[in-house]
């Protein structure tokens, strides 16, 4: 006769602590082969698509000239780099003299006029301004400047009148401070002054030449003892963005600005006797050729005509973001996994066991969210950290210059991408808990996350206003966290999602996704508690 001994589990008896719950959910996650494969697929998709876009984005130029009709094809050159390491456009007409040591320059501006091209190019090489329309661009500029040397990208500080933004003091490309408002004319001229003391440059403006107001003081690091100083004029190209469909289909062309100056006064060490005029530019700049630019000097009056812009460069391709195009594929994969992490329990009836074992339902949801977030965050971190260097390497090999980004920006993009995947997966989990149906939940999340982005970046689908609105309020706003380029108010360009610019700041955009997720999660916890499983 057999003696039956009652079964006792070998496991020690413990409370249903949150640690056990986490462990239970982690065990569920790692033992479903499809989900583990899904996470690996997400990583491979991100890396693979990054490599694909990097390797297939050839960029090459050939500098065709009459002397050399078949020049060798070369990689696209990078724009000049400013003192802060950022890409800049630095082309203007410079009427200069060396300034050896301390000193100041004062001038009165009596007019700012301009010409612009609406057809993309300019007239013949002999007569470049033929067929251009009179009119001054909003950020056309003319004034006085002190610049380290005539290299493109060299440090500078300048006082200027602009087409429709009043007097400005600008320095080192990214800095811009407003002075007197209003347009310049013979009736209301503007007086500008720059004084240099060592590396410190101070800008003043005045409406009458007697009462001066300080606009700004700036220290230019590494300003040599002998700097170049004088008058300048520049005008960014004209562009008309059709306010309707197709953000990319803007028309425009180079433009020209002419400033008229008098009452030119100098103090300090100016060793040269006369002014030298020079067009600071290179062939790839959006500017008219040097023959269209120049200066005249008659009886104390000077006019300076220049083309181009002194400003941060904003029409670059956001190379970092391009390498991360695969994020969307990874996102779809982790959303599917996030949804299945809860709907599979409903389908198999496992949810009843889970809730019997852990009757505090909110904690079950929290444990699931944490496990999911940690796994997908780790996967996203690996994927982004591999993809960005790999993609940039391939982009460089196919001839693309790489937008310079600081270590801080890079970290934000890598961590942001991982966080994007993690929060999206949790959003999938929350919506899956709400709807308890896989198909509906996956569709809701992807339609909220990915579809607005597709609509916003595909040219010709949505009007620009609607596009901006879409990437501001929908969860797709979170893709701002991957933005690698910076938007500057002093540069007019198409700031749309399609060209890499999001209306919200990186973490603000990400916060929009977090808010949606928090809302869904709260609603899911509430319904999970109230509803029968």
């Amino acid at each position: 006769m057999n003696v039956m001994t009652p079964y006792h589990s070998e496991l020690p008896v413990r409370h249903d602590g949150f640690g056990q719950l986490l462990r239970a959910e982690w065990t569920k996650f790692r033992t479903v082969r499809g989900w583990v494969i899904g996470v690996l697929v997400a990583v491979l998709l991100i890396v693979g698509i990054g490599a694909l876009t990097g390797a297939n984005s050839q960029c090459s130029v050939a500098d065709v000239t009459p002397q050399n009709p078949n020049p060798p094809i070369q990689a696209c050159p990078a724009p000049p780099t400013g003192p802060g390491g950022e890409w800049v456009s630095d082309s203007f007409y410079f009427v200069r003299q060396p300034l050896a040591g301390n000193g100041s320059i004062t001038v009165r501006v009596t007019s700012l006029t301009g010409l612009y091209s609406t057809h993309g190019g300019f007239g013949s090489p002999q007569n470049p301004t033929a067929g251009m329309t009179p009119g001054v661009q909003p950020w056309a500029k003319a004034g006085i400047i002190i610049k380290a040397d005539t290299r493109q990208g060299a440090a500078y500080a300048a006082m200027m009148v602009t087409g429709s933004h009043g007097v400005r003091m600008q320095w080192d490309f990214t800095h811009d401070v407003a002075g007197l408002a209003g347009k310049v004319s013979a009736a209301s001229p503007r007086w500008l002054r720059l004084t240099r003391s060592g590396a410190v440059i101070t800008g003043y403006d005045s409406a009458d030449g007697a009462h001066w107001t300080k606009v700004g003081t700036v220290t230019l690091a590494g300003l040599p003892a002998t700097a170049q100083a004088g008058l300048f004029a520049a005008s960014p190209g004209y562009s008309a963005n059709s306010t309707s469909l197709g953000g990319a289909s803007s028309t425009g062309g180079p433009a020209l600005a002419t400033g008229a100056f008098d009452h030119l006064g100098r103090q300090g060490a100016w060793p040269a006797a006369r002014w030298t005029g020079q067009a600071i530019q290179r062939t790839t700049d959006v500017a008219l050729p040097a023959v269209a630019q120049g200066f005249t000097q008659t009886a104390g009056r000077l006019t300076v005509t220049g083309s181009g812009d002194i400003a941060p460069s904003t029409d670059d391709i956001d190379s970092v973001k391009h390498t991360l195009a695969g994020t969307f594929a990874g996102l779809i994969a982790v959303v599917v996994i996030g949804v299945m992490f809860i709907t599979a329990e409903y389908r198999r009836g496992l949810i009843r066991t889970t809730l019997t074992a852990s009757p505090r339902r909110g904690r079950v949801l929290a444990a699931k969210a944490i496990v999911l977030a940690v796994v997908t965050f780790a996967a996203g971190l690996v994927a982004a950290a591999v993809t960005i260097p790999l993609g940039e390497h391939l982009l460089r090999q196919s001839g693309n210059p790489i937008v310079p980004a600081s270590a801080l920006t890079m970290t934000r993009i890598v961590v942001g991408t991982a966080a994007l995947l993690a929060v999206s997966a949790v959003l999938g989990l929350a919506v899956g808990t709400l709807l308890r149906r896989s198909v509906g939940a996956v569709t809701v999340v992807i339609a909220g996350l990915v579809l607005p982005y597709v609509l916003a970046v595909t040219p010709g689908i949505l009007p620009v206003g609607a596009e901006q609105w879409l990437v501001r309020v929908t969860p797709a706003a979170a893709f701002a966290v991957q933005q690698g380029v910076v938007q500057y108010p002093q540069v007019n360009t198409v700031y749309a999602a399609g060209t890499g610019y999001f209306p919200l700041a990186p973490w603000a955009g990400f916060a929009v996704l977090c808010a949606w997720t928090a809302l869904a999660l709260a609603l899911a916890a509430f319904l999970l508690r109230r509803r029968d499983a």
Partner: protein
Amino acid sequence: MTDVVHAEWTKLRTLPGTGWLLLAAAALTAVVSAIAANAVTCPAGTCQLDPARVSLTGIDLGQVIVAIVAVTVVSAEYSTGMIRLTLAATPRRGQVLTAKAAVAGTVTLAAGAVAVLASVLVGHLLLARHGITPAHGYEPLSLASGPALRAAAGSVLYLELIALLSVGVATAVRDSAVAIGVVLALLFLFPIISGAVTSPAWHRHLDQFSPMTAGLYIQATTNLRSLPLTPWQGLGVLAAWAAGAMLAGALLLRFRDA
């Protein structure tokens, strides 16, 4: 075969969500189209604008709901185990798939026709108020013109093909979440990657292969020369994707245990 179709119709009809989803597909399509048409500002009358494309913008969202319905037709049976009963009752598995495709196609046709007609009507009314008039050099949107009729009828066909693609994918992968994920990835990833690749040749190829981008060429009525494919060729690309998915689904259904 009639009985099989009838059985499938009964299954779909008696699901509580189907009617609402189809209604939502039509309503959302019309609403999104209306928003897009209303957002057009064309003061100078010089913008490059395709009135048909704008009026049918809602299809971009409507297709997603059509995909839900079509995926559910197949994957709901797998998640409940009903598929084993269905295949026991109809051992000719090809017939089951054909019946499912027919039923999903029919309801899509009905919802799609309503959605497209509503969008065209809304577009006709709203675009005229935003300067898209003959005075500005635009043809008013009307189904009497050949290209506009092609865009409208083609959009219904587009939704139809999306439904078939979804049925095929769902049959092949069986799990509902994975199926809808695959369908949406097929639709949305091509335009995103195409936007990231700067090489013109690859850009063009990706657009030509993309089921969504190429398929929606059927809505284009202006600037046809700038498209990498003609409108009907574009719809043909989507048809090829749908046929491929259906074939893969049919083969897997035939040779795999349910």
